[in-house]
């Protein structure tokens, strides 16, 4: 997938002027946090479970090489095959190789962010294999040739009229004058359409929420059942999973599952949580004859042992973006690559480079909400700060910003001068603004005052007042 992350500012401006997107954001912004809050309130142990989840993932990452090998051995003992892939190219080649070997014409797909990372659909199409997205949201995005804008609600940015228009445009064999009275009618049309695809597919590709070392199992979590039909009906099941999906045991997995749905959709548990181990057994009546796991690195092993290792705990619940004021204002497409929101702002520079994605960790108010709701307690703001430092060190930030920071840094290292300068500035602004009580524009701060007024200072500084009251208190 080609990144538009370098154009974050323009993307954001465009997003804020997009009426349809703003309507969708206004609808979605309050719902996810409310649902999560209610699910968390119903589980008194939630905070303890967050700590346990963090420990499980930390333990796994400290021993990731060991668990990956145990996992691969167990997949093979169950009759499956593991394809170790360092890069996106390796993974695309492995998937295509399997599809071509079995002569696949169509491939159904469950929702997978790794699939977006690989751009697997375009790759298959280029080799005359038809990929069909089966998650409802991903399906309409495929019809519209758009990337997802959210990691668990990929088409939340669309409104009903968009769904109807896309369905009318794409399902041309159906009567043009059919009426969509309710959302259910849209859903039913997609269900009927995709049912034929499920039955006809030669290969099914899913992602994985977890890989279990103990049993060589991949786990997917869905509400629609599309992932299960995808991995049950075709002759071949291919699992796309990155190395950090590893979890040691079934017990570890269920502890993380207690956090996942509650943090994501606010459900206590998703509708379908499915554990897949190897291909169909001799006596089984259904299931795939081949089971493959594409084990993808694509930049993750380089995060191990660095200040960004904690990011590998992420279980992709989307709580961070659901609670983020920046994401809530610009939506997901503005971030310009696969992963949006706070988790994307940390992960994207690791995976595609800080030169490409350096703007993303700057798109944060550091309000800390993301870290406070993260089920894996990932210190997201701290890691965004690390990226800002790296960006500065590598001279990637804009000239004006670097100069501004240098000027501020000069003053900050000289407390006496800093206090004097701020006292002068406050006194000046206080005197200038006394009459109106606020400034609607200021030199050098036009970007700030464009969106709001600056209340006029009262002429004093915090330091001055603090010193005065200390003296008064002592006296």
């Amino acid at each position, binding site marked *: 997938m080609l990144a538009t992350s370098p154009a974050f500012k323009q993307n954001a401006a465009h997003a804020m002027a997009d009426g349809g997107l703003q309507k969708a954001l206004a*609808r979605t912004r309050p719902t996810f946090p409310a649902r999560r809050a209610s699910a968390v309130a119903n*589980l*008194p*142990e939630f905070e303890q479970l967050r700590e*346990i989840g963090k420990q499980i993932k930390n333990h796994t990452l400290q*021993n*990731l*090489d*060991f668990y990956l090998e145990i996992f*691969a051995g167990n997949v093979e*003992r*169950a009759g499956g095959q593991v394809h*170790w892939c*360092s890069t996106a190219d390796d993974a695309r080649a492995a998937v295509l190789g399997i599809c071509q070997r079995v002569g696949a014409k169509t491939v159904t797909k469950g929702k997978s962010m790794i699939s977006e990372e690989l751009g697997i659909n375009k790759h298959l199409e280029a080799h005359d294999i038809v990929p069909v997205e089966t998650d409802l*949201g991903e399906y309409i995005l495929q019809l519209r040739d758009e990337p997802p804008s959210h990691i668990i*609600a990929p088409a939340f940015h*669309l*409104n*009903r009229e968009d769904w109807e228009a896309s369905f009318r445009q794409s399902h041309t064999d159906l009567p043009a004058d059919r009426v969509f009275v309710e*959302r259910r009618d849209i*859903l039913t049309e997609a*269900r009927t359409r995709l049912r034929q695809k499920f*039955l006809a597919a030669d290969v099914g590709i899913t992602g994985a929420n977890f890989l279990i*070392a*103990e*049993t060589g199992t991949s786990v997917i979590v869905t*509400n*629609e*059942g599309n992932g*299960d*039909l995808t991995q*049950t009906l075709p002759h071949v099941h291919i699992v796309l999973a990155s190395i950090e999906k590893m979890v*040691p*045991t079934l*017990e570890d997995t*269920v*502890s993380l*599952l207690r956090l996942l749905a509650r943090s994501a*959709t606010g*459900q*206590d*548990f998703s*509708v*379908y*949580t*499915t554990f897949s*181990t190897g*291909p*169909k057994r001799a*006596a*089984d*009546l*259904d*299931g795939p004859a081949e089971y493959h796991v594409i*084990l993808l*690195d694509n930049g993750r*092993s*380089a995060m*191990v*042992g660095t200040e960004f290792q904690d990011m590998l705990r992420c279980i992709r619940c989307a709580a961070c973006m659901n609670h983020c004021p920046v994401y809530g204002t610009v939506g997901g497409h503005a971030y310009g690559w696969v992963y949006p929101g706070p988790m994307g702002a940390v992960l994207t520079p690791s995976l595609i480079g800080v030169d490409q994605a350096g703007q993303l960790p700057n798109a944060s108010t550091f309000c800390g909400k993301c870290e406070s709701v993260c089920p894996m307690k990932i210190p997201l703001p701290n890691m965004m700060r690390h990226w800002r430092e790296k960006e500065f060190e590598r001279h990637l930030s804009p000239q004006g910003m670097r100069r501004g920071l240098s000027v501020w840094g000069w003053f900050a290292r000289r407390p006496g001068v800093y206090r004097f300068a701020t006292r002068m500035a406050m006194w000046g602004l206080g005197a200038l603004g006394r009459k109106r009580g606020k400034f609607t524009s200021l030199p050098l701060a036009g970007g700030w005052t464009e969106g709001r007024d600056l209340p006029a200072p009262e002429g004093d500084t915090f330091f001055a007042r603090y010193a005065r009251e200390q003296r008064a208190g002592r006296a």
Partner: protein
Amino acid sequence: MSREAILGAIQRGLRRGPLPDDQAMALRARLNAHPRHLIPARSRVPRPEQVALFIRNLEKEFSTVARVPEGSEVPGAVADYLAGQNLPSDFAMAAHPELQALPWESRPLLRRREGKAEASDLVTVQHGYAGIAETGTLMLPGGPQRPTTLNLLADTAIVVLRASRVVGAYEEAFDLLRAELVPASGIMPRNVMLVTGPSRSADIESTLELGAHGPRRLHVVLVDDDAAAVG
């Protein structure tokens, strides 16, 4: 080769080579012991309350439940449910001995076929392996006697479950699975589904609609075979 490259990069990051033997042994011991973590208190209650919690959570997640005092009443409960929903009376049923032993002939209008589900099936009857009270979840391990397609293809999925198989937490259901369905080789059944209610989607305008790609209705017939569980 990619395998060595990935493992090598991880080891470099961790500033060590392959795990020393003593540490690897400790990790193997952890895998063999697969210790439990915190289990939420909500399911740590006496049997009758556990079953009541299971039923409450099933209904919360839009399943329906019929509780019958013994297995002989299951065919009647299935027939009544289908009639009440205006559904056809033929269905595909799991070839599980517990289901086969039920007196289906007591309801001659019911027509059943045993085996996996086909695309044309409107109703399926599945054998429930275990119920998990914590979230009203059904554990359905696949196999010749419990084909996976029976959980997925029909509009209406019916699951027959014995109350003695209702446990509190996921960990307890996996204990049953390990003891009964995982052979000494340690290989899990190919497919184990945890199902919590009928299929749904909130992809259209973040509004929940039931009946996405899986069943639109999930009906559980719960057989009270456990005297201790009847409150």
